[in-house]
């Protein structure tokens, strides 16, 4: 069996059936049909499907179509031959034979008369993979960003695909050559004005203290993109990939302000990109009150008041997200009894708008605190909010 150095090879030999087998072994006519078309299907998250089409000359009677490969990781059990034309009355696949110890198979194909058949061979290939990345250029006011989605196809399959159609499930159908060992990156989708929300978050459980002795919290910043049409996205789910973030500067250029791994974001969901810690927002969190009341026997009701003293030293107003994990809070104050926390909000909770019902769950409470900009005298106004909670029906 002939074998190319690396590529899958299709050989066609015509069996002269009236000739005894011993003679056939010595006299063979072999043609090498070239690829007419290649489609690389990369939409599956883990599997690359290659489809190649070849015009295969056949003689009347039985033909051997020998498909072999070397140095490529074709999954042999996935190889599929479909005869696209002519129809099954004229050309039929009879059987497939697998020689021992070889990366090869032999299709026995019967043809009613001599002529060419258009065949499509599909197989799963390892080493040909995709990678997504994003470039975000935010406006100076950080209200919108230019969102560019890039696709990189890495060809480590040890195989040349000089002219290939590429489909990754998002964006359009691409047509690019893929040379061996090459990575080819293309701009897949471009959204010039995506609505952006910048968030500041105070969440002890998730991000910890900036200064524990002073009870000052870390305040991380995020860009939040909602993958929906209202925010000028929402055409496809956003696959995971690295996001490099730039911001437009005053000179018409841009500055790199950080990067993060963007998680897979389904339609209508939010993509959060971590930017780092805000230096100009100071949040001091203290437990102002913690007292238990006996209901009966070992059954208690526990009152907790958490005070947040917040200062915004920025020149712009902003909204701070304040999050509390009530289970962590209960465990800190009363110990872990293994049960979920049954809580009710106290009347002296001061956050305007109260609990955010969309983002809160039974365990994670989310409030918003609007913060004014730094005052004209350069001082930041200290905003004080309280979260009052009853931890109901607690016992050890």
């Amino acid at each position, binding site marked *: 069996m002939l074998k190319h150095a690396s590529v899958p090879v299709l050989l066609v030999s015509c069996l002269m*059936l009236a000739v005894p087998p*011993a003679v056939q072994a010595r006299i063979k006519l072999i043609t090498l049909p070239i690829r007419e078309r290649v489609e690389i299907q990369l939409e599956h998250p883990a599997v690359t499907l290659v489809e190649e089409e070849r015009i295969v000359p056949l003689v009347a009677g039985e033909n051997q179509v020998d498909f072999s490969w070397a140095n490529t990781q074709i999954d042999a059990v996935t190889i599929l031959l479909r005869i696209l034309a002519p129809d099954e009355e004229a050309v039929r696949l009879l059987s497939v034979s697998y020689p021992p110890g070889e990366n090869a198979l032999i299709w026995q194909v*019967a043809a009613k008369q001599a002529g060419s058949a258009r065949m499509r061979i599909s197989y799963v290939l390892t080493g040909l993979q995709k990678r997504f990345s994003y470039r975000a250029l935010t406006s100076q006011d950080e209200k919108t960003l230019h969102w560019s989605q890039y696709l990189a196809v890495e060809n480590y399959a040890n195989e040349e695909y000089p002219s290939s159609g590429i489909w990754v499930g998002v964006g359009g159908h691409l047509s690019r050559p893929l040379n061996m060992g090459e990575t080819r990156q293309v701009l897949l989708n471009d959204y010039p004005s995506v609505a952006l929300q910048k968030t500041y978050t105070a969440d002890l459980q998730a991000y910890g203290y900036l200064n524990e002795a002073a009870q000052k919290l870390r305040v991380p910043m995020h860009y939040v993109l909602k993958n929906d049409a209202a925010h000028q996205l929402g055409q496809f789910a956003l696959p995971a990939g690295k996001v490099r973030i730039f911001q437009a500067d005053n000179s018409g250029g841009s500055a790199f302000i950080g990067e993060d791994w963007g998680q897979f974001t389904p*339609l*209508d969901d939010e993509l959060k990109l971590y930017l780092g810690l805000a230096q100009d927002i100071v949040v001091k969190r203290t437990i102002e009150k913690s007292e238990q009341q006996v209901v009966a*026997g070992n059954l208690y009701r526990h009152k907790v008041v958490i005070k947040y003293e917040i200062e915004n030293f920025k020149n712009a107003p902003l909204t701070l997200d304040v999050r509390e994990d009530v289970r962590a809070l209960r465990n800190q104050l009363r110990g872990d009894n293994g049960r979920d926390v049954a809580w009710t909000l106290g009347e002296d909770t001061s956050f305007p708008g109260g609990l955010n019902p969309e983002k809160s769950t039974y365990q994670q409470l989310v409030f918003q605190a609007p913060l004014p900009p730094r005052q004209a005298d350069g001082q930041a106004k200290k905003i004080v909010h309280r979260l009052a909670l009853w931890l109901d029906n607690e016992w050890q």
Partner: protein
Amino acid sequence: MSLILIHKTAGLRSIGALLWLLTASAVAQNVDLSTVPPRDTVQLTIYNSADLTLVRETRTLSVKPGINPLQFSWANTLIDPTSVELRFVNHAAELTVLDARFPHDKPQMLYWDVQSQFEGAATVEISYFTSGIRWAADYTAMADPAEKTLTLDSFVRVYNNAGEDYERAQVRLVVGTINLVEEIAALARAREQQQLPASLPEEDYRQANKQAMRRLEAKDEMMAGSVMAAPAVAMMAPKAVAKESLSEYFLYTIEGTETIPNGWSKRLRSFKATGIPIQVEYRYRPVEYGDQLVRLYLLRNDKLSKLGSTPLPDGSLRVFRDNGRDGLSYLATQALQYVPIGDKIELNLGADPEVIFELVKQKVWRDNLLMQLRGANVYQKLGNGMQFEVDSQVAGWDEHALYDQRISNYSKQPITIEIRRSYAGDVVFRSKLEPVLHDFQTVQYKAVLAAGEKKDLYHEIIERQGKNAKKRNIEILNTVVTAP
């Protein structure tokens, strides 16, 4: 392997194509002449549930009146010597097997002494079990772009690693489970391991050489197929695979004969069914599919579904979809378990990124608290102005949890989702979702979402804990549950 008729006299008589002069036969100490009758026919009955193949081969011998020693040997193969049988296809009344002998110094050989009452040609059938040949089914399913119908190609692939080339063999495949008390491969090795190491006699060298030559030729013979000397212009059809039921088994017989050299495998189409109606359903069944919502193609192995002519044996099944852009999309590969005629077939395509499925626990509270006076077997419910001793403890309560099962369908098709969740203990499932009990601790309900629709399926779980728990099953309450 070979069958040799040993001529103990000087009278030369050639039966087979090859003649071998044995110089050191275990039977004849002096110069002997033997003939090697070739196989006339061979039939392989291959089981997929065990490493077992029943081989039946026929050969034509020339016998003379009196005792005719026959040597049957199977060097370098995986034949179970305890299974080898000889039967006379014709002249049965005139031929008798006097005995079968297994020589001590030749592990893969036996001798039959056949008593003949006539002179002439006799056809014998030799049958035996061998390991090393197996078959497996595999399937390719291809859905149309709208996912309304499916084309199913079923294949059978025969693997020959038995150490023997089987040329122009009739191949029969058995679907079903059989019981074996000993493995054929172990039996094949057992006698060989009992033998002391010895150098191969000259005859075995010859056999090995002969087999090697035959192997060289076999590939080309196989490539030529078993339809020998057919006119080149005749259009050949794929081999038909006849299916018949046999007791608890199904027997597939491949049309014509096949040549499968040792080490090779061959794949043939068993059947092709087109236009099979399929239903697309989404299911959340963590016990079966893990903690994810999966998408399935549902179909049936019956006549209405253009299937049902045969059970579907175990095998690997690959699912593709015509992507509507003159190409295929790979969807999944799964191991199909045996599907009886009439049974349903579920093709699990995995999670669908276009359908978002999220369970959010929104609120937790407790009530119906039951207090026990410490040191006494006295219980009182909390509330109703009842006074409690300080020295009492919680002995029972109802734990309430409000859930929102959020589903968003971003696909372009309406979808049906079936959800199953299991709860241990004394549980109340409260909702307007029209749930049913799948079993005593599993609730099942369905939701239908139009393309682009989102739904919040609110439900409340009440778990009776401690002394409040009176039973271990689920009670369904059909009442409205709303967002907190």
